[in-house]
């Protein structure tokens, strides 16, 4: 995308039929640190990589509880994400007050999408610079949605957003067919693996990631650091158990070399 004469404000179309300001807003999401979500029939897991500005500062919060049955993970302008989370919480509280029952996720994401769309069609506004992974439970089971700055929303079995999210998406694409009947623990492990992919070499510890889960009979909660660290350690033990077989394959390859000639 290059700087051009059609990208000054959101109410200007380009000749190719694009709204550049909206596309630039989606770029902001791609620049944020990674957030992933995946779901089974009964649970949804959200995980995020926490970037800190410096060693001195605390990590940014990217996962928010919206209600007992809904949570969000954000990537992009976290300030916009906070404001939208406040809106989502307010909508849930107002719906519960009037109808004495939880707001169905599907309705909430439509309201959120419509709110985002408004900002793409007003000359005095700008699009929200944040993508939201909305995890929720309703009568029809567990759901995961992705809301863009453009005002579009999609339902996913699993998805990743933010920087280096393609690595996580590749992992999720390989494994998503197993998620539907996954156990709660395996789902969390898959989330941690996906986060690991986005780190590309950096060590995965519980201090740089946040994991949250919600499911049937289990209200939304952010899993505490200790439990996450234990799970990460158990992942590493599994990986080390896999290494001896990799070493043996390397021994065999010199034997294979003469045949290649």
């Amino acid at each position: 995308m290059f700087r051009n004469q059609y990208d000054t404000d959101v109410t200007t179309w380009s000749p190719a039929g694009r709204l550049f300001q909206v596309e630039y807003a989606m770029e902001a999401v791609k620049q944020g640190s990674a957030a992933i979500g995946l779901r089974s029939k009964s649970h949804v897991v959200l995980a995020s990589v926490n970037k800190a500005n410096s060693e001195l500062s605390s990590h940014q919060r990217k996962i928010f509880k919206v209600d007992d049955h809904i949570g969000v993970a954000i990537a992009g302008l976290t300030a916009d994400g906070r404001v939208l989370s406040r809106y989502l919480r307010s909508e849930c509280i107002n719906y519960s007050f009037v109808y004495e029952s939880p707001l169905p996720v599907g309705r909430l994401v439509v309201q959120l999408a419509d709110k985002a769309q408004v900002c793409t069609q007003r000359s005095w506004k700008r699009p929200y610079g944040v993508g939201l992974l909305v995890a929720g439970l309703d009568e029809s089971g567990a759901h995961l949605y992705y809301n863009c700055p453009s005002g579009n929303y999609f339902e996913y079995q699993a998805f990743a957003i933010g920087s280096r999210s393609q690595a996580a998406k590749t992992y999720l694409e390989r494994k998503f067919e197993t998620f539907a009947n996954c156990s709660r623990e395996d789902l969390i492990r898959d989330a941690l693996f996906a986060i690991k992919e986005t780190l590309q070499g950096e060590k995965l510890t519980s201090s740089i990631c946040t994991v949250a889960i919600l499911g049937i009979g289990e209200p939304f909660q952010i899993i505490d650091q200790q439990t996450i660290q234990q799970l990460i350690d158990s992942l590493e033990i599994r990986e080390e158990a896999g290494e001896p077989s990799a070493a043996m394959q390397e021994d065999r390859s010199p034997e294979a070399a003469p045949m290649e000639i």
Partner: protein
Amino acid sequence: MATKQQANWSPYDNNGGTCVAIAGADYCVIAADTRMSTGYSILTRDYSKISKLADKCVMASSGFQADVKALQKNLAARHLIYQHQHNKQMSCPAMAQLLSNTLYYKRFFPYYAFNVLGGLDNEGKGCVFTYDAVGSYERVGYSSQGSGSTLIMPVLDNQLKSPSPLLLPAVDAVTPLSESEAVDMVKDVFASAAERDIYTGDKVEIVIVNAGGIRREYTDLRKD
């Protein structure tokens, strides 16, 4: 001479009932009868006037139960917002102030609700707050509100009243009673009130808040 115009319809009704709360050193007992009436009729014998507002904070309200319900829902919604913003439950004194503000907000069309708020304060000591319909409130060691309060309050004064508040050094507001003694006292005063107050009876719902959590008990009362 023309007579003054009078309303032919009132937005309020009195559903009767009595509420009591007693604060102890490390517990709080909140109780209310379960009778809901209108005029000289009984609407139901099985209605709870008690609502848990936060982990360590319980409210009992007599008066117009439609207003009470609306007030409870209002406070519950405000508490959720507080939890989202502060990542913790509201303390009992904080909820007490919120209730006062919420009541005064409708100073010129009040909630017809007579409330007692009970729970544990930030130090784990029992606390009771008593209110009028427009939010005037005070922290006390014990209180009663509702149709039977005129019968119950003098008895509680006689049994629990701390010496004059003009005494120096100031004496603790909490009662020297043990938890089980306080529960027994509550049962006794309700039994007495049910004898002479037609709007109090059927059952008493007793809620006890202590460090271990919240417990609920029921005792039968006169059903006439």
